[in-house]
């Protein structure tokens, strides 16, 4: 079970990191969201995995660690606030720069790459 859980966190991290390194605001935001899902799962698992051990007194024989759950709850809420902010910030950047590139404009060498790849794709 632990390995499966670890692979999930790895996949979320890898995907989040890759998207975070993209050049447009939208994938970056998606990547950050993905990363925060991974991080939340990770923090959650720092209290180890349990089945049917929900930390509600009287509902189980042994309880899973409630503290990481509380921490993750806080982290989810904060992550939500941050994501909301960065989404809106990317909108603002789009409005201010007429471009959704993370740097406000497409750097020259990148736009040539774009052109080349498109040509490559067309032929």
């Amino acid at each position, binding site marked *: 079970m632990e390995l499966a859980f670890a692979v999930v966190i790895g996949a979320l991290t890898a995907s989040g990191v890759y998207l*975070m390194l993209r050049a447009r*605001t939208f994938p*970056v935001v998606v990547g*950050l969201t993905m*990363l*925060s899902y991974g*991080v*939340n799962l*990770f*923090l959650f*698992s*720092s*209290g180890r995995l349990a089945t049917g051990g929900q930390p509600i007194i009287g509902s189980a024989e042994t309880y899973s660690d409630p*503290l*990481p759950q509380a*921490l993750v709850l*806080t*982290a989810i809420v*904060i*992550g939500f*606030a*941050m*994501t909301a*902010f*960065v989404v809106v*910030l*990317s909108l*603002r*950047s789009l409005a*201010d*720069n007429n471009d959704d590139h*993370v*740097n*406000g404009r497409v750097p020259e060498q990148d736009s040539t790459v774009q052109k080349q790849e498109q040509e490559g794709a067309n032929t």
Partner: protein
Amino acid sequence: MNHWLTAPILIPLIGGILQAFMGYAPIALRRTLAIATTVLMLVAAIVLLVLADDGSYRLYAFGNWQPPFGIVLVLDRLAALMLVMTAVLALFCHIYAIGGTDESSRQFHGLFLFQLLGLNIAFLTGDLFNLFVAFEVLLIASYGLLMHGEGTSRTVPGLHYVVLNLAGSAVFLIAVGMIYSVTGTLNMADLAVKIPQVAEENLPLVKAGGMMLLVVFGLKAAILPLCFWLPGAYSNATAPVAALFAVMTKVGIYAIIRVFTLIFGNQAGELSGLGMDWLFPLALITLTMGVIGALGAASLRKLIAWQVIISVGTLLAAISFGTVAGTSAALFYLLNTTWVAGGLFLVADLVDGQRGSAQDKIVTAPRIANRTFLSVLFLMGAVAAVGLPPLSGFFAKLLILKSAVTESDVAWLWSVLLIGSFFTLIAYSRAGSIVFWRNVEGHIEEPQKLTPSLSVSASALISLSIVMVILAGPISRYAEDTAAQLHDTSAYTEILSKPMVGEEK
């Protein structure tokens, strides 16, 4: 329990909440209440400074829950020093802001006070996860503040700042998770107790977690290679915000001092001095990069922003020694550099206001109005920043230089810092002589009026470097006591056994 400990938190929180309600109240009322809040906060910080000077650790357990279970505030000299430093800077930034910067958004004062809230929590908290929450409070407020103001120039740097810090927060959480997964605790004092007892096979996890924390704090502190978000963000923020941000990198430095002297300090067994051997070379490279940036800066704001990075490098070099002398030198330097950098950002803005389309760019322009006043302020700021006598920067630099002990430390620190100072001097003299002296024909339409709130706050912050010279003795004594207190980790961990309300005998 001394309820004063909560004052630096409750005051800006209440003030901020009031501002949230008062979005549409007359601006005069909002300004009055906001400034009153900041003044009260300064008063509270001073009270705590006086309290802390007896050298004891004061504990405040939220919810009356015994640490390590509940969240605690811990007041010591370091916390008090950071609080006062921040409150002083904030007050002048705030006064500057009511000179007109606050008009472009109704949320300004609220965000400003929430920013202070986050800073104060960070300085006082004794809980690692709560430190994360504090970081988030101050970051989200700083995001809002950064975007404050007219124009579009700050959007992209703001976006970079936000995205990198979001990634940083993710790393912070991972690090907290790793450390919790081994130690099972979050309270810093408890961590200081538990870390030396970590089993051999678990050391790598804690070590990696600690190093990740160092990266996160390094990102906030703007240490190379994590510093490149700073120049753009700071130089595009509105003046009072940029000036207040002078303290933002210091939060990272504070966190490094706190966590890496308490949790990974000299009593941490296997893990003592974690990361410090990385820190010293990185600090020197950061310093060098800062100097290069300052030399190449095209505007006063950029110059000062790189100055912030120079000071980060200098500070961390001293901190990395892990000695009382190093830490106390860093603390003295910290005060100087924070206030002066803040003041310089304000001066740069005033200059900008006088120069029309030339703004604060280091280019020739028609002669500015109020040249004498502004050039004297700039000169003083530059002298204090470069570390020339007779202003406090010199003494701060002396302390830092003197804190190096081993021959290789001396050789590296002295040469990098002194050669760096030389080139910074060249950068400032070049910038100042072009901006203030090298004039072209013509005159500027509608220069900004230097209202008292603008000029007083800018000159007050710069003049603090004179005050620091006069009070150099007492301040360095306080810094030394602070450093000594910090390095005596066992005293801190005694908070774990303090009685709660209702338990006192």
